[in-house]
């Protein structure tokens, strides 16, 4: 295996694209889901996924950026499984937003495997059938006597074999099978197995190349100063001292574009990064804060509380909530709050851009969206696609942050301005201070119960700013992104009315791993617990009681009950809590056990169940859930981002703390993969139910109900 992150070389690609008969390329038709080969239709009429060259080199193209979630292994393995090639024997190329690779060149929403599972297997299976047929033709033997293994075709009776490279040309001339036979899952060698990730040796030796590691000849470095106050405008700056710093070669204005915002910025360019950074620190900048410097979290919190009194727009309504609630003999009301949090991937935002010949642009970036970069910058600079080359580098974490291209735009502008390749590298302070952030959501919840504890009416009202920056945004309607999942839970309530109230916010906000489910699940599933307490029922039984019909949610809860030994009494001072959450990316749940420790609690154990339908790599799935638990814990117990004087209070990891190894709870992950046609996501579902399961456990252990994140786990 080789880490090749460059764009495919067009001439090389054409040479082997079957037109010249030098090799074999197969992929998917551009629009449809049909498997096609190069040469069959116009050369760019397909999205290539496999290229087999005469010398036996096999390349698998991977359109899904690798940011830690394992697409570098999972996506190619879908093809390799059917093609009968070992992952260690192929080159995996990350694609660079090229049109031929279609519109799916991004990673997010836990969608990478969900969206590709059958199509990519079909590509591999078709290629294999053609190679086997080519061998049978060459040997003049019945095709049934031949089979493929380890990048070769074997003739069973005689034992002779021939490599894929030697068959490539002949195979490229055969018809693509209409209906390639997919392998029976029981014969899988890679899928469903704990196949080691090919990127792990690279990442255990400093050899993996991230965006920050890119160096190109003649490259200079830029450190970019932005206003710490959101919404400030540049008045003037003095760069005399900056220009005196040894190694500083220039100072340039540029703009950071994010969503609807354009922020002024000043870049100091240096021969090396340190010089650029020192120069930037020597700038004296005058900003006009435009009144935004009085903005603070306390006032904003009050504003959201005030907004919560509004009725809001209906997200989903069933039965007659108002009547059922007002008539219910037992009522439960609660208000939940969550904080703004940062993405904070450990690799800070960076990008190398290089303009040549006036109209050719090359970009190297740790990004989730090579396809988006291609569209945005060809349009902005009015250049044809073949003039933009994008190198999708390994991302040192992303979590949604790298869905955005603000930092790419800075590098592109600066390279254009100075006519040299430029590496823009944000500091950690830039990253923490500038956002975008996951916004907070506040939740007002109401429920009506019968005297014997039956749920009669339920309401979840969400109050939040939106992450959807659209000109047509209608504040009077609900916003599915910000009410994510609240109306999709499987609990059966005879009367339900969920609502949404939109809040204004001038701070840049964005999707975060598991998006809004990360905050809403906390409110939703903690409140279900409050209902159970009011109803005098065991929280697990209360939930199962709301799920009379069969559903994946019910299966997850039953599995959690079993693996956590829910009915087994815990030692004194311990408590356990349960939560689950289903949303667009998938479904998972936790049972968490805590013990009292001083005024706080210690997390003893977290049992997770993730429901997948089909699992591509169980071990990688477990790793994703373990990691999601850590991220959820950070969001629950660390400061998050707060605002004073129009800017973030937290600037770096000393104040914006993340969970460390000594705080890591034991996480035991169970996977439900009962086959089934639905393929669910892996990267995100492990996040949302963690905080509510923890807080429900804390209630069970201490009687304290936590309705506001973050909280101090040492003093609950």
């Amino acid at each position, binding site marked *: 295996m080789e880490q090749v992150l460059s764009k495919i070389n067009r001439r090389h690609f054409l040479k082997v694209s079957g037109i010249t008969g030098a090799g074999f390329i197969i992929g998917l038709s551009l629009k449809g889901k049909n498997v096609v080969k190069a040469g069959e239709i116009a050369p760019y009429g397909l999205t290539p996924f496999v290229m087999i060259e005469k010398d036996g080199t096999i390349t698998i193209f991977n359109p899904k950026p690798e940011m830690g979630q394992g697409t570098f292994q999972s996506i190619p393995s879908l093809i390799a499984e059917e093609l009968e090639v070992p992952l260690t024997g192929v080159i995996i190329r990350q694609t660079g937003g090229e049109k031929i690779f279609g519109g799916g060149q991004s990673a997010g929403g836990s969608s990478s495997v969900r969206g590709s599972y059958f199509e990519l297997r079909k590509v591999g299976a078709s290629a294999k059938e053609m190679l086997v047929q080519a061998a049978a033709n060459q040997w003049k033997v019945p095709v049934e006597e031949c089979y493929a293994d380890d990048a070769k075709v074997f003739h069973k009776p005689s034992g002779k074999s021939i490599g894929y490279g030697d068959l490539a040309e002949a195979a490229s001339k055969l018809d693509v099978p209409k209906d390639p036979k997919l392998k029976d899952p029981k014969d899988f060698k890679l899928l469903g197995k704990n196949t080691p990730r090919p*990127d792990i040796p690279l990442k255990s030796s400093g050899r993996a190349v991230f965006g920050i590691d890119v160096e190109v000849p003649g490259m200079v470095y830029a450190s970019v100063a932005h206003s710490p106050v959101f919404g400030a405008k540049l008045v003037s700056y003095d760069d005399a001292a900056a220009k005196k710093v040894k190694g500083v070669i220039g100072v340039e204005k540029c703009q950071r574009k994010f969503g609807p915002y354009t922020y002024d910025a000043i870049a100091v360019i240096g021969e090396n990064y340190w010089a650029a950074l020192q120069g930037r620190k020597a700038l004296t900048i005058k900003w006009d804060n435009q009144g935004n410097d009085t903005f603070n979290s306390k006032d904003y919190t009050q504003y959201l509380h005030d907004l919560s009194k509004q009725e809001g727009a209906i997200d989903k309504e069933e039965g007659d909530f108002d009547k059922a609630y007002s008539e219910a003999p037992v009522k439960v009301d609660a208000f939940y709050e969550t904080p703004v949090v940062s993405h904070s991937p450990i690799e800070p935002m960076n990008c190398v851009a290089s303009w040549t010949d006036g109209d050719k642009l090359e970009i190297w970036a740790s990004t989730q969206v090579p396809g988006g970069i291609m569209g945005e910058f060809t349009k902005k600079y009015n250049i044809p696609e073949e003039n933009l080359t994008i190198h999708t580098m390994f991302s040192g974490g992303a979590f949604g942050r790298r869905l955005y291209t603000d930092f790419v735009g800075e590098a592109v502008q600066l390279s254009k301005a100075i006519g040299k390749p430029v590496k823009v590298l944000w500091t950690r302070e830039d990253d923490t201070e500038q956002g975008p952030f996951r916004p907070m959501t506040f939740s007002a919840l109401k429920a009506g119960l019968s005297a014997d504890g039956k749920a009669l009416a339920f309401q979840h009202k969400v109050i939040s700013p939106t992450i959807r920056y659209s000109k047509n945004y209608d504040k009077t309607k609900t916003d599915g992104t910000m009410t994510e999942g609240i109306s999709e839970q499987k609990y059966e309530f005879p009367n339900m009315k969920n609502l949404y109230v939109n809040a204004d916010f001038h701070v840049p906000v964005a999707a975060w791993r598991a998006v809004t489910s990360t905050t809403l699940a906390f409110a939703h599933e903690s409140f279900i617990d409050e209902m159970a307490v009011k109803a005098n029922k065991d929280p697990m039984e209360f939930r199962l009681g709301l799920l009379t019909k069969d559903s994946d949610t019910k299966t997850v809860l039953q599995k959690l009950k079993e693996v956590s030994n829910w009915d087994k009494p815990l030692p004194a001072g311990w408590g356990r809590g349960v939560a689950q959450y289903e949303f667009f990316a998938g479904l998972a749940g936790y049972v968490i056990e805590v013990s009292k420790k001083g005024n706080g609690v210690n997390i003893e154990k977290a049992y997770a169940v993730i429901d997948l339908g089909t699992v591509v790599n169980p071990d990688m799935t477990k790793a994703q859930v373990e*990691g999601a638990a850590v991220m959820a814990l950070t969001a629950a117990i660390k400061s998050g981002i707060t605002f004073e004087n129009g800017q973030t209070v937290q600037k*770096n990891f000393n104040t914006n703390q993340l969970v460390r190894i000594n705080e890591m709870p*034991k996480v035991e992950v169970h996977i439900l993969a009962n086959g089934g046609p639905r393929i669910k996501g892996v990267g995100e579902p492990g996040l949302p139910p963690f905080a509510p399961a923890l807080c429900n456990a804390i209630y069970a252990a201490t009687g304290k109900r936590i309705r506001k994140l973050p909280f101090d786990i040492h003093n609950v």
Partner: protein
Amino acid sequence: MPEYTLNVNNKDYKIDVDAQMPLLWAIRDFVGLKGTKFGCGIAQCGACTVHLEGTPIRSCSFPVAAAAGKKITTIEGISENIDHAVQKAWIEMQVPQCGYCQSGQIMSAVALLKNKPHPTDADIDAAMQGNLCRCGTYQRIRSAIHRAAELV
């Protein structure tokens, strides 16, 4: 600018840099070894961990002048063939996710095992607390360190 000789992974490099430049940038941008990473610049994340005379330091907060003439080891220097016991354990336990923090994690783990060939969980907490992992690979880091202790 003063000239310094940096001994990195048993090789001498002569570099001409500002005395206050952190060792991290000297290693990355002047010596040209990119395995050591930048995460925070204030000794909070551990991504930049290297060994100075065998002791782990945060190279982002260590002036190059103070490292001159001393033995510096980076992730590239712990093995030729990715076969240090810690690396083997890292691969066996499939520790890295995004991988960005892992050079630093491994350098901290290598130093820990040199001092304590059989570390307890408390030893691991103490030695590894300075290394953040946003992907949350901590559970696997712990198992891999225990595993590496068996492999050494």
